[in-house]
């Protein structure tokens, strides 16, 4: 039992509930008509005819749309992650100077 400040979390109770719900779902599934399963073997997809051989989607094609729609963001990020060691250190110095300015600003500007 894990107190979170708002409520609590108990993994064992969650698993018990999960199993109970699974059993209930299975029982409800049992009420269905038996004849219906035969028809379900050939699912209907509108428009496209499913190819027979199995197709494996390559990793670079997954989330193509997401990456394409955020192209502006990713272009900036690609530019940042340029892999040049000089820039790694420059970022570090930049952050150190920025922290220094933030920490000393209240004293300089009253």
């Amino acid at each position, binding site marked *: 039992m894990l107190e979170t400040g708002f409520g609590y979390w108990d993994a064992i109770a969650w698993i018990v509930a999960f199993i109970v719900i699974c059993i209930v779902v299975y029982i409800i599934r049992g009420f269905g008509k038996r004849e219906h399963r035969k028809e379900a073997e050939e699912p209907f997809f509108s428009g496209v005819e499913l190819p027979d051989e199995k197709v494996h989607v390559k990793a670079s094609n997954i989330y193509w749309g997401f990456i394409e729609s955020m192209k502006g963001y990713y272009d900036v990020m*690609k530019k940042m*992650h*340029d*892999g*040049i*060691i*000089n820039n790694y*250190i*420059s970022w570090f*110095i930049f952050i150190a100077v920025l922290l220094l300015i933030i920490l000393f600003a209240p004293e300089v500007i009253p």
Partner: protein
Amino acid sequence: MIWNVPFITVALLIAIGLYAVMFKRNLIKIAIGITIIESGVNLFLITLGYRKGGVAPIYTNLPSGVKVPEGMVLPVPQALTLTSIVIGVAVLALMLSFIMKMYQHNKSLDSHSRRLKG
């Protein structure tokens, strides 16, 4: 005033070293830059332990008339510097061997001819 010279040198050394690491594209020059920063930090440590007119902190070599321990320089920063130098030697050796390997693979010492990015 004159006693500030070592500290000014420390600042200069660190600045020069950082300049080399940040703006020089040659990998060997980056290694040199790191060594210069390290020299700056070591000089800073040594300067902290110095006392005006102090002698080396070895009891058995003490010249006569030196007060103990006021007349000696602080030994702790020297021990720290020595440790730091030893570590620096190891880092420099490792860094140069990496640079050699990278040169064998890439035939270039340019930091922009990298393989890993994105």
